[in-house]
């Protein structure tokens, strides 16, 4: 059986940080280094393969379980990154591709090239900086939740026993008093995300298949999951 893997295209500082952050989830991480990229000795000690843009990539499906794998396109040159993304997407329709772009313009092109998620570096960094300055406490709280720097966690929980709620609306229930968690958003079947107190969410009875985005302490979240379904 082919391995579930993380494929990282590009061998640079970003690669190093991505490897550091995902190795807890992916045992098999392969770094594809473009032949023109400069040597990165630290990364070259791990699983590194050399590629160039004439590669057909079809060999990947023989080695890896691409439907369940994830790929990162992090070449420093935006044009090359777009070319790489489009090459991968044209070969593998289902591959989950996360790509890095310098700015919004490239981000749009990467989305058009088939990336599932694009991280526009400049905008992301700038937003974080202005958030730190404008809303330092909010930023601190969200970062500690998102990047697991505190005991607070964020989780996605899918509803599987709607009968538990008996047709109630999400805003009618005092979640934090009853279960010690806070429901921030509800994702409906059509994958649209709604704030719990938004008009749409207020008129949408809880039903199976809804996903709750929940913030709380780990034990409370686990307890809550037991009530309403599974992760």
């Amino acid at each position: 059986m082919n391995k579930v893997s993380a494929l990282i295209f590009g061998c640079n500082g970003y690669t190093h940080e991505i490897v550091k952050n995902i190795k807890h989830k992916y045992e098999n991480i392969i770094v594809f280094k473009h032949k023109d990229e400069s040597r990165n000795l630290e990364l070259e000690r791990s699983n590194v393969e050399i590629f160039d843009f004439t590669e057909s990539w079809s060999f990947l499906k023989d080695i890896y379980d691409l439907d369940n794998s994830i790929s990162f396109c992090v070449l420093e040159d935006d044009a090359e990154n777009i070319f790489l993304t489009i090459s991968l997407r044209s070969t593998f329709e289902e591959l989950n591709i996360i790509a890095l772009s310098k700015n919004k313009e490239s981000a749009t092109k990467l989305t058009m090239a088939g990336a599932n998620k694009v991280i526009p570096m400049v905008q992301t960094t700038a937003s974080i900086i202005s958030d730190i300055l404008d809303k330092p406490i909010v930023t601190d709280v969200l970062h500690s939740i998102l990047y697991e720097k505190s005991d607070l966690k964020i989780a996605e929980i899918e509803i599987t026993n709607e009968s538990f709620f008996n047709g109630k609306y999400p805003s009618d229930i005092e979640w934090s008093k009853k279960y010690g968690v806070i429901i921030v958003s509800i994702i409906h079947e059509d994958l649209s995300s709604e704030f719990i107190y938004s008009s749409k969410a207020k008129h949408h009875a809880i039903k199976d298949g809804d996903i709750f985005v929940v913030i709380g302490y780990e034990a409370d979240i686990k307890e809550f999951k037991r009530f309403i379904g599974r992760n």
Partner: protein
Amino acid sequence: MKSFVVDWAYSLSVSQSYQKNKRFVHNCLENDDYKYKKYFDIFMVILIFLSVSILIREVKSHVDDFWLNFSNYFVSLVFFVEYILRLWISSSVSNIIIKNYEHDDMLDIEFQLSSTFYEIIKSKLQYIFSIKAIIDLLAIIPFFHQLRLLRVFVLFRVFKLFRYARSFQTFTSVLATKKFEFITLLMFAGIVIFVSSVLIYVMEANEANSKIDTLYDAFYWSIVTISTVGYGDITPITTSGKFVTMMVIITGIAVLAFTTSIIVSAFDEKLDEIKEVKTIDDIRKIKGLYIICGYENIAKEVAKQLLVNNNVLVLDEDISRVEEAKRDGILALNYDPGNIDSYKKLRIDINTQVRAILCLRESDVENVYTTLTVRSISKDVYILSLLINDIHKNKLVFADANEILYTKELVGMIAREFIGKPVAFEAIHTLRAGYKNIDIDEIIIDKRVLSSFATIGELNNIKYRLVLLGIYRQAHKRFFFSPIDSTILEHGDYLVVIGNKVFIKEFEKYLHTKSINE
């Protein structure tokens, strides 16, 4: 006598009240940065306008004695006092005496009063004969109103206006840079006027029908012609006279064009400087300023985002980037952010006026250098710096940056979150970006809020459809998630709420105005 003079000089220089008064007068008269100077300037401008209005009115109408006395005595007295005060602060007599005494004492030679007095008189005369002081003096003269001729000196009071109008000072300083060109032009025009006047006088003065009778007429004609005004009251009648006229007209056009081009080029060269002075003046009035050092990719985006609700100043040593910032509608100066002089030139109090300094160059060397520079000026100002290569992180920590942002680490963390909880990640991202008008915000609990609300349960956030994520207790620097209703609010707490932007604003208003409404 000598020791008395020296003792007197020393006593003045150490007298706090004397120095304080002198400083106050100096600030009122000369220091544009002094907040009360503008009131003094306005007062003087009003006096000048009143004085000139009385003069104009007096030409054909009767003016009350009150107003005449006001103009002749009160205004003149105020101007006289101002003149004396300006003379007083123009140089320090005590400093000159002390300087000369210490100089002679150090060289072990006898202290000479005569040479010291000579130096004092020289310094005062230097002021008295300056153009501004002469205008000030002439503006006082209408006090001698019995001498009708001297009344016209009231017009010098108009010239005094220039002392209080900074734009005129800018204008003269700009023209002063072209002094050489103006002198050359003036000499050229003077020679042409002189030669043409003599020529026309020689050619026309003896003609019966000619209106040029004297050399004065010839000068008058020459100046009217060369200036291209050409009243036509005096015209040449001889062929040779007409030839001279043509030459003068052609020269006049050249002189006029040359004068215009000198003024234009002077302003063109000084335009950036003038704009810079104006920008610095604007900056000095701003509080809660963000200074962004460098204007590259990330800096541009940060500036754009901060500009929505804040005042932003960009400092960059690269002129093209500064121009780009200006085109983007941001206050920007072509100053090196790594140079202490740049901050001195801004004349701002970094501790009170600046909210944060952001070192956003895409070079760690520059960012470390700027951080150190800023920290050497202020120990307290908040500094945020970008980190491009993590091997330099310890240098930024050592330079004492408050917040260090390593962009590559961010990508790693985003990747981690995205592979783990993509839906939650998107939900939080949506919140932070403020899409669909849903926002996450912090509301401070100040004394006003505390006077109406004692516990979390009383806040009634549900009514405003807000999720209370928790409270941040400033005193403990700790976040309390989803606090129970009986939690007692403390001064300085922050509520972290999620909800519709409009409702958050309404809720904040409700917290602050509940006591009034009740």
